[in-house]
């Protein structure tokens, strides 16, 4: 059954403009959809192919492209297959439609994404803060929020003065490389781009 799954999905999506599907593994199918046709794709998958379980919605911040990528991971208990539908929406204003009426779990995932990325989902039942109720800063998962920088600016670190260190400092030694200097992501390698 599994080997055949890819084909029916592509047949299913034949009617939807601009949706491409690609088999990625034994039980993994990737669909590239557009913000316009995603609701239709999900509805088709749920209604006609038995993809009842919304496993997760993942949001990715492509800051350099000015886009958010939303990935809807759907699982079919019948086909035993997982479909990941990808769309990209503009980073500004970062608004998309809720799929809560199709998949109730979407409510939580959308709330989470709203909290962490600031993407607003129209029609989602509850977009109140859940985790970050005491947080005043920007949505922290956005790539332009420098968490480490914020921490360094907000908190102070323990300034240890153990005896052995004082002794070494008397001899002219001391802390040569602080841990923060050696950290992989603060290493200054020109042209390095992740």
């Amino acid at each position, binding site marked *: 059954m599994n080997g055949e799954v890819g084909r029916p999905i592509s047949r299913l999506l034949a009617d939807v403009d601009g949706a491409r599907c690609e088999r990625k593994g034994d039980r993994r199918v990737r669909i590239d959809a557009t913000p316009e046709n995603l609701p239709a794709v999900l509805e088709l998958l749920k209604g006609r192919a038995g993809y009842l379980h919304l496993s997760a919605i993942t949001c990715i911040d492509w800051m350099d492209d000015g886009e958010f990528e939303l990935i809807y991971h759907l699982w079919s208990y019948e086909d035993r297959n997982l479909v990941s539908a990808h769309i990209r929406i503009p980073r500004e204003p970062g608004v998309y439609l809720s799929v809560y009426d199709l998949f109730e779990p979407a409510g939580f995932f959308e709330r989470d994404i709203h909290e962490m990325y600031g993407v607003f989902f129209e029609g989602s039942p509850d977009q109140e803060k859940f985790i*970050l*109720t*005491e*947080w*005043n*800063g920007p949505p*922290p998962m956005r790539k332009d*929020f420098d*968490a*480490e920088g*914020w*921490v360094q600016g*907000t*908190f*102070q*670190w*323990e*300034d240890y*003065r153990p005896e052995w260190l004082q002794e070494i400092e008397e001899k002219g030694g001391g802390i040569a490389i602080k841990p923060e200097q050696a950290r992989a992501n603060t290493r200054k390698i020109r042209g390095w781009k992740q």
Partner: protein
Amino acid sequence: MNDFPLPVRAERSNPLARVFDELIDFCRARSMFMLHYCTGCGAIELPPAMTSRFDMERLGIQPMVTPRQADILLITGYVSIKTLKRVILTYEQMGSPKYVIGICSCTVNGGMYWQSYATAKKLNEYLPVDVYIAGCMPRPEAVIEGLRKLMGEIKAGRANSWERYFREYDRYLAAQQNLFGPNWQTPTDIIGEARDYQLYGPGTEGRHTELLQQHQVPLQPLRMTLHSDVEKSS
């Protein structure tokens, strides 16, 4: 940190009073109620420590569900900013003498979440801490060793960190305000309590308590009335 040496209890002149103090400390050290609040991941080692295998109860330590009856606040690992507020509320509600134990790396210098935007880094900026237990997380045996260390400190009359919270309230409040914003307030009147306990010191009030008093909303008595359905129908 060394600027604030632990206050050693003033020698009382009356030898009877000294004996009494020692007796009190001896008793305190043998009956410690630990607040049952799992602030972080280190809490997973508390059930083994509390139950049959490592059996904290043989030291007279018991979990207690309300802060009002608890002696020990066990901070089990990282405290997120959200939790820290509750921890401070809880701490202030606990009756004196009270002791704080910081478990795991995270309470000392941020631990493995040192770059996290969501956790507080140094517990002793916000609360006076009596005993630290190293580990990530410490094993139940280490936790028990820490508690025994605390017992020793209490017996020796050195575990007086709670007095520092009153004497240097302004300093602790400063760190709290720095993290939570100027609006931060708790329902407990620390300055009043400090006066009451005769622990009012030069550091009790300061710039930060002034700010607190500006923002503080006085508490009003809560009226809760249960009416019958009469009003609803009317």
